[in-house]
């Protein structure tokens, strides 16, 4: 039977509102306001998981986001299933289902538990050492490691929840709503700063909000009631926005922070419909105040990981907040006063304490006296040396510490208990501070790192700044705020404070035991099962850098990033290596502070909103006519138009034949278009293209090749001279934005003296290309009052024209080698002109073709596609395009690079045509080209860049780059494929109509 360990109404829960939930298939009850961990503890459930490496039973250890053990999977078997959730942060709701994550087949019987007995075989670096060799076995190792490590399950269905992003700009961001955060938020807001206060918990007040005793008073009120009044006041402030359930995940430079605001995770599933689950807040704050508090340290002793061993502060929180006793026979183990605060809370609630073990020998503390008054046995100068119990702690052994704290002396005392609260002092939560680039300093008195150098306009206050006691906080916080906010006064100048904590602490990083270290299991990192022994082993094996030790032992590499154990790891390294703590440095904390779900990160950018896609003005026609689409950059381009049962090959063969035999029509609207104007436009083109432009007559078009300064082909396209000082340049579809950027760069930074203006007009025009022997008949029907004679309108020329009342530009240019026209018209008329062309071409079997046929047709002509037949290593000479490189021009972009020692090598890869021995054999693009398959290793000469079956030539054709290919025409080469070698002959890259007769056909 499960016990009920609920003692007294807690502050946070509503006992009139009972909630049922399931954990590992079993139904339990809790109250509204409970976390999953408080509700489980109330039901006396401590065992919630298994450790990562040894599969040791593990229980709830903390009450906050630092939890290393109680990691659960929520909503198993649903699209909402979520791994790696900390039970301490889950607010329960009716119908909640959670299960342990790190165990199989069940938490109570775990096959992997065998690792615990094999642990001498699993030292630090075990995975690295064992699974290194032979490499071919890795696949098998990985399978077993993953299965037994069990890092949770990811959902297999789409996430049904809604996520959003929001930008927030504020004057002051306050992180954390403990006593110092509340004071900061109030002070900032009241002094006219637009302030945002965030806290990861559902309610404000931090730990002071349950500090209800005569030992902590402010202005004669218990500190919790004083703070409650403050909170009620700040809720009314206009200048202050308060966000609870909001955790800051990342703190970047320039006070840019990411936070996750959680709206629905605490609601029953059926109430979440149509609500935003999380909002990712992108906060830009002028000033940031971190009041992130501190995390209690565990202590490192033998078997310090059993279920039932919790942080002392967590026991206090469970009692004060949720009215839950973590045990019936509690023992506290401490090296400072904090455990006595816990003890006083437990005494108040009538929860039994068996004993307190204190490392310190003498303490003059009011809190200690109070506990002693209640007849609780305190073992001063003692330490825990071992713990017992398997699935839950059942007892401990203690021994007296030697004077220097390095050994244990005297005889062993055994105590029985069902819960052990541990307090090793406090570690300031400086994670966000260090993420922002802040530098820490080490404070020797109490062995903590505190903020030292701020990289931006920010401040740390309260215990994250090392002020751990109430009086320190109330004295230092107003002082810091006045300076930081540049104000004269705060409301907190003359508070009367009673604070009873004695600050003494006996810090021993690795507590001594009566066993040799090799025989102990003293955990430093609970989630990754790294022990003190592992760290010492790493040091023995020669690791010195803290970052190396971390990776070798995996200390601090779990989802909790070692929030509990990192300090002990550092301490043990420093003691063993004889280095000073402050000089060792710390490991880096990286965002996110607590894990974020992918949904939160991507927000609304899912499905069709994942990326922008661009459609041409004719897109709907392509859709209606069953085009298949291909992505070209952000564009959706018609790829081919299958008829009835045609596959892609059949459609492309049909389209290609039609274009050459009668007429084809292509939507070329995606080509980049740049309008160039200015008195130096011709000079500008001279400088950016490899060929000469000054002599191009108005009304004429010219193909141009653009290089990078390193001589490699960058982009190509046809540019038309529209007027004396006016050109329109076309670029490749994918290169448009980059070309525009590059041209702007040269104009602004290298040639500011040129009078040239660039405007991107890609989206302004629809471009329709009609090609084939019947193209003239079709286009002249669409544009009736224009002289289409070859004399008036020859190849590579341009005319202004009208279709009805609408102006258009017609270029006679060709990318297929056929007689063809390109109509450019204001984008919104694109579709209707396309339809006119289709109508006019009806009698000529006008055939719409897509990008695939376009690629085939140009390959027949040996025209390159930049980015397919070129990569960033091809010069125009490599492409056998010497004809386009002006010898006369003094300079153009990339010219000097064309005769660098490397670019003039004869054995560079050069573009050639390739014909297969068997004309029906179509090569695979990307396939390797070799000369000799017997040589070992086979020497690679190049690769295939374009390959098609040409219906017009009735044979397979290919383009490829081959080392020294230019001088290999007629030579036989081999394409070695998986199943066979294919024989090819090197050929001229122009396969069809070398004389260009068809242009004027």
């Amino acid at each position, binding site marked *: 039977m499960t016990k009920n360990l609920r003692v007294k109404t807690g502050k946070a829960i509503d006992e009139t509102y009972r909630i049922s939930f399931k954990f590992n298939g079993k139904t339990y009850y809790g109250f509204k306001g409970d976390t999953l961990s408080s509700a489980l503890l109330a039901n006396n459930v401590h065992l919630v998981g298994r450790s990562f490496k040894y599969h040791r039973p593990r229980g709830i250890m903390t009450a906050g986001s630092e939890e290393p053990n109680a990691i659960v999977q929520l909503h198993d078997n649903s699209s909402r299933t979520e791994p790696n959730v900390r039970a301490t942060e889950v607010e329960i709701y009716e119908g909640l289902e959670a299960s342990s994550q790190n165990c199989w087949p069940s938490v109570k019987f775990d096959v992997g538990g065998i690792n615990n007995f094999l642990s001498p075989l699993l030292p630090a670096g075990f995975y690295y050492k064992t699974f290194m060799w032979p490499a071919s076995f890795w696949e098998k190792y990985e399978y077993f490691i993953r299965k037994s490590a069990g890092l949770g399950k990811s959902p297999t269905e789409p996430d049904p929840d809604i996520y959003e992003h929001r930008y927030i700009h504020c004057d002051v961001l306050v992180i954390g709503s403990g006593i110092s955060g509340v004071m900061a938020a109030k002070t900032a807001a009241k002094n006219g700063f637009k302030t945002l206060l965030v806290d990861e918990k559902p309610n404000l007040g931090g730990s002071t909000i349950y500090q209800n005793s005569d030992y902590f008073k402010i202005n004669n009120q218990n500190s919790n009631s004083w703070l409650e009044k403050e909170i009620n006041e700040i809720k009314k402030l206009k200048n202050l926005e308060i966000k609870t359930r909001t955790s800051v995940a990342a703190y970047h430079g320039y006070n*840019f922070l990411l936070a996750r605001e959680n709206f629905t995770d605490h609601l029953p599933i059926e109430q979440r419909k149509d609500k935003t689950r999380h909002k990712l807040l992108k906060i*830009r704050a002028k000033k940031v105040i971190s009041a992130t508090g501190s995390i209690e340290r565990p202590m490192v002793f033998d078997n310090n990981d059993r279920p039932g061993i919790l942080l002392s502060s967590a026991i206090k929180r469970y009692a004060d907040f949720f009215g839950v006793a973590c045990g019936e026979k509690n023992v506290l183990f401490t090296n400072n006063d904090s455990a006595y605060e816990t003890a006083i809370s437990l005494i108040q609630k009538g929860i039994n304490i068996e004993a307190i073990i204190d490392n310190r020998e003498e303490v003059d503390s009011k809190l200690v006296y109070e506990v002693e008054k209640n007849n609780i046995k305190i073992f001063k100068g003692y330490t825990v040396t071992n713990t017992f119990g398997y699935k839950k702690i059942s007892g401990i052994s203690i021994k007296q510490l030697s004077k220097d704290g390095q050994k244990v002396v005297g005889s062993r005392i055994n105590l029985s208990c069902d819960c052990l609260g541990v307090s090793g002092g406090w570690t300031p939560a400086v994670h966000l501070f260090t993420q922002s680039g802040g530098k820490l300093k080490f404070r020797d008195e109490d062995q903590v790192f505190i903020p030292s150098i701020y990289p931006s306009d920010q401040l740390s206050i309260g215990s994250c700044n090392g002020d751990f006691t109430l009086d320190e906080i109330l004295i230092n916080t107003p002082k810091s705020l006045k300076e930081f906010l540049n104000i004269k006064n705060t409301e907190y100048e003359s508070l009367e404070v009673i604070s009873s904590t004695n600050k003494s602490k006996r810090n021993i990083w690795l507590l001594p035991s009566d066993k040799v270290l090799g025989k102990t299991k003293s955990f430093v990192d609970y989630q990754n099962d790294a022990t003190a022994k592992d760290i010492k082993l790493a040091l023995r094996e020669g690791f010195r850098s803290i970052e190396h030790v971390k990776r070798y032992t995996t200390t601090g590499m779990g989802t909790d990033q070692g929030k509990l154990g990192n300090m002990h790891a550092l301490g043990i390294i420093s003691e063993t290596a004889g280095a000073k703590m402050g000089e060792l440095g710390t490991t880096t904390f990286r965002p996110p502070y607590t894990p974020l779900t992918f949904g939160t990160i991507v927000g609304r950018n899912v499905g069709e909103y994942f990326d922008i896609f661009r459609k041409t003005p004719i897109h709907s026609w392509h859709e209606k006519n069953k085009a298949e689409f291909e992505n070209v950059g952000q564009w959706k381009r018609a790829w081919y138009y299958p008829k009835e049962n045609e596959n892609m090959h059949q459609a492309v063969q049909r389209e290609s034949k039609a274009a050459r035999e009668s007429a084809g029509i292509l939507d070329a609207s995606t080509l980049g278009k740049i309008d160039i104007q200015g008195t130096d436009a011709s000079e500008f083109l001279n400088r950016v293209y490899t060929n000469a432009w000054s002599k191009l007559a108005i009304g004429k078009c010219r193909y141009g090749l653009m290089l990078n300064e390193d001589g490699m082909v960058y982009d190509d396209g046809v540019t038309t001279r529209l007027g004396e000082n006016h050109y329109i340049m076309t670029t490749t579809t994918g290169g448009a934005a980059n070309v525009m*950027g590059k041209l702007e760069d040269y104009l602004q*930074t290298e040639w500011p003296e040129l009078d040239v203006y660039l405007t991107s007009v890609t989206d302004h025009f629809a471009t329709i290309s009609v090609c084939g022997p019947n193209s003239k008949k079709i286009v002249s029907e669409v544009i009736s009052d224009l002289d289409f004679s070859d004399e008036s309108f020859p190849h590579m020329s341009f005319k202004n024209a009208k279709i009805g009342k609408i102006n258009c530009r017609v270029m006679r240019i060709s990318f297929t080698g056929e007689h063809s026209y390109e109509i450019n018209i204001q984008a919104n008329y694109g579709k209707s002109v396309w339809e006119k062309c289709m109508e006019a071409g009806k009698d000529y079997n006008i055939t719409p073709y897509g990008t695939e046929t376009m690629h085939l047709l140009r390959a027949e002509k040996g025209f390159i596609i930049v980015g397919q037949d070129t990569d960033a290593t091809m010069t125009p000479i490599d492409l056998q395009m010497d004809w386009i490189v002006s010898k006369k021009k003094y300079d153009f972009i990339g010219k000097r690079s064309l005769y660098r020692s490397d670019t003039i090598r004869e054995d560079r890869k050069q573009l050639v045509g390739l014909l297969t021995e068997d004309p029906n054999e179509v090569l695979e693009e990307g396939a390797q080209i070799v000369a000799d398959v017997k040589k070992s290793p086979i020497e690679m000469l190049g690769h295939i860049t374009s390959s098609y079956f040409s219906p017009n030539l009735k044979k397979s054709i290919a383009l490829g780059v081959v080392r020294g290919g230019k001088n290999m025409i007629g030579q036989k080469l081999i394409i070695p494929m998986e199943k066979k070698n294919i024989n090819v002959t090197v050929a001229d890259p122009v396969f069809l109509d070398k004389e260009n007769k068809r242009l004027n056909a």
Partner: protein
Amino acid sequence: MFVINCPFCGEREQSEFKAGGEAHIVRPKQPTELSDDEWAEYLFMRKNIKGVQFERWNHAHGCRKWFNMVRDTSNDEIKAVYKMGEKPPIE
């Protein structure tokens, strides 16, 4: 993510900008008269300093203007921004 003070638009998020490498490398006026080594020096050699660095930036999703920036790469502190053609305000 920095906030960059575009000399033309004022303070904007870094995501609006594009970095353009080291500043004050002038394209040689007569490239054809340079040796391979001299041309390679212009073409390939760039500094990568931990500390104060002079950089080109472009307000790509804004005014599209190029400008120069002095940035400490060790802590991302922007020491100055200035227009193309202007002398750096810091040595």
